[in-house]
């Protein structure tokens, strides 16, 4: 290593290898990502471009550095299989007996099925007729595919109808931050992509499902502590205008609680940026079931029961086991 050109080549080679690994390959693999169809219905594609105002809101999100406190990546530690009873059938006594028998399986076995609350409650009393009310409902949970299949088979043999639902699990999901893990498709039409690196505030990947109302977001941007008790978020009052009420109060004016309200005769009106940001936030809905991150959506599963098993087939091959 005693020559300048040799040194140059060494550095060039090293950088080129890292470049081809993380820039070129990434671009080849992720840069060509296209819309995909969702598990629920082949006709529904995901993602769709954000509506215009929400697209502008993304720029407000960028300009004010929201990503320094909020991540948009939900993690998932795995998936579980819930056995859902959709129809009780004619031989209800046999169904209940089969369910109770399945619930008896010790949970610590490798093929263990564990009863979910409604079934666990019914374990004590002998009749268990209440079990079959309010179907469809999930009754058993398993982490093991063959065991779940066997259970479904046992239930179907009693003239009832049961199916397997895929339930992604993980602390983020348990917190209600999303229904499945985030995938690259969620960001397809965003530029810049801001997945965030900090959780000073909660994850926003699916905030549009949690808080679908624009008014909630506007109020929260203006006075975070009024909406979320004990929030550490700073207020974004510069996105709003406080002005004297004209002839008529503005229809956009915020309805503020007493401690955040402006003095009498004044109203707080969101500026365009605030509306755009709120619209962007409500457009953050990472809930579509995809083949890369499947989940069974209750409504869709009930409507098109034939699709659900397809989804399950996809799971066993496509989904990385511990994500």
């Amino acid at each position: 290593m005693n020559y300048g050109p040799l040194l140059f080549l060494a550095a060039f080679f090293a950088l080129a290898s890292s470049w081809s690994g993380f820039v070129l390959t990434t671009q080849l693999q992720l840069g060509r990502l296209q819309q995909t169809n969702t598990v629920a219905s082949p006709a529904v594609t995901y993602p769709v471009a954000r509506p215009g105002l929400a697209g502008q809101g993304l720029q407000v999100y960028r300009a004010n550095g929201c990503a320094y406190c909020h991540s948009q990546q939900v993690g998932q530690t795995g998936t579980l299989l819930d056995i859902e009873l959709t129809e009780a059938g004619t031989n209800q006594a046999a169904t209940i007996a089969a369910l109770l028998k399945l619930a008896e399986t010790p949970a610590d076995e490798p093929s263990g099925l564990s009863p979910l609350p409604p079934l666990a409650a019914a374990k004590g009393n002998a009749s268990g007729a209440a079990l079959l009310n309010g179907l469809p409902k999930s009754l058993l949970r398993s982490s093991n595919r063959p065991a779940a299949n066997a259970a479904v088979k046992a239930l179907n043999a009693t003239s009832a109808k049961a199916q397997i639902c895929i339930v992604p699990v993980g602390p983020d999901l348990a917190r209600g931050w999303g229904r499945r893990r985030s995938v690259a498709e969620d960001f397809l039409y965003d530029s810049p992509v801001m997945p965030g690196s900090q959780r000073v505030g909660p994850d926003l990947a699916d905030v549009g499902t949690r808080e679908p109302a624009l008014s909630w977001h506007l109020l929260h941007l203006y006075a975070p502590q009024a909406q979320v008790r004990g929030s550490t978020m700073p207020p974004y009052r510069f996105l709003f205008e406080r002005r004297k009420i004209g002839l008529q109060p503005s229809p956009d004016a915020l309805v503020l609680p007493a401690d955040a309200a402006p003095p009498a005769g004044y109203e707080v009106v969101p500026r365009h940026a605030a509306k755009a940001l709120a619209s962007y936030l409500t457009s953050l809905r990472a809930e579509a079931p995809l083949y890369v991150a499947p989940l069974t959506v209750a409504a869709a599963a009930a409507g098109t029961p034939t699709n659900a098993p397809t989804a399950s087939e996809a799971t066993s091959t496509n989904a990385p086991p511990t994500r």
Partner: protein
Amino acid sequence: MLFFSAAVWLLVASAFGLIASIKFHAPGFLADCAGLTYGRVRPAAVNSMLYGFCLPSGLGITLWVLARLGCARLAAPWMVAVGAACWNLGVALGILGILRGSTTGYENLEMPAYAASLIFFGYLMMAFWGVVTFHQRRERRLYVSQWFLFAALFWFPWIYSTANLLLQGGQVRGMAQAVIAWWYSENLVVVWLGLVGLAVIFYLVPKLTGRELHSRYLALLAFWLLILFGGSGGIPATAPVPAWMPALSFVTALLGVVTVVAVFLNVFRTTNGKCVMLMSNPSLRFLGAGLVAFVIGGLASAVVAWPFINRLTQFTWFSIAKGFLTSYGFFAMVTFGAVYHIVPQLMAQEFPFPRLVRAHFFLAVAGVLLFVLPLAIGGIVQGVRLQNADIPFTDIAKGTLPFLRVSTMGDLLVAVGHVLFLANLGGLAFQFYRARAVSAWAAATAETKVAEAVS
């Protein structure tokens, strides 16, 4: 002078850092002004630290060491000065742009395109003459540090242009943007800062202790590992990207341990196991502290790369603490050491306040400790609690506040240290120019006296 403007930027950075930190005492602090909202002040702090201080001071050191080791004069110093002015203008515009809300949205690459192009141009102006100086060297045999610095000279323009063109040019879409931003950020913070920082350590430690560097081959190993694998870490385990990326990141982060061990062993053997020697000289003291931070930071990176642990620490303050440990605890400390060594030689003057150098050292070390320790512990606590969905999120967020408040103290100490640093540099520059002015004055008056005498 490059170092001086770097010191000013440092102060700007710590001012922004303090504002951002105070926001955790009272979220309403300065919140009603758009330019001073947390999401703008924080990137402004990070950028003025990186582009205002780390890169230009690193470049200044690079040029000096290349000239020194090559026994050559710096080629076209005025061109370098123009480049530095260009760079500073770019950084100033970039910071203003960030405060105005024209950030790009990619972490560590927030400068808008107009500032980035100025920065890039300024860098090329400086680096080109660095390469020319390297080429004109009269000492043909290359020393270890020269490998590192020469590679660093090329590294930055490559990654900076790649990242800027791809991300701001708009050709790349979707998650690929985020991956490229991670790649750039890692290459800048780990590889570039690592190359320059290690070059300084390998140059100054043997020089100031008066011993030979223990092994060229260990240094070569560290060099290759750093440039081959240093830039591939940093993709979090749960990122929504194909699984091979986090896996590759993890493996390369483990290889980082080998780099750390190679560097540490080399320095340890160079000082013949007497690390106490590092305390004997003010510059060496900074280098020693920087080396410790490098070792701890490198090991921490390898530990948190483990997917299981990464899941815990990924979105927490721990990552901030780790980042600060490498960019400040390691790189900035090493830079201070180098500046305290180089600038008096450049100006042929001693520092006016040698005691302040000592004070700066202790302030910096205490500041780093007070910043990194609470945030690291707070981050781990935060991460563990985030795994438990039964704890409400606001409780977790509030639970981190005491740690953040302690870390503000660290910010404050570091900032006071920067004031001392700047005072010393300013005092030195003042002395230097006064001495020059006095001699010029003396020469001028002498001439008139002679003229008077003649007449």
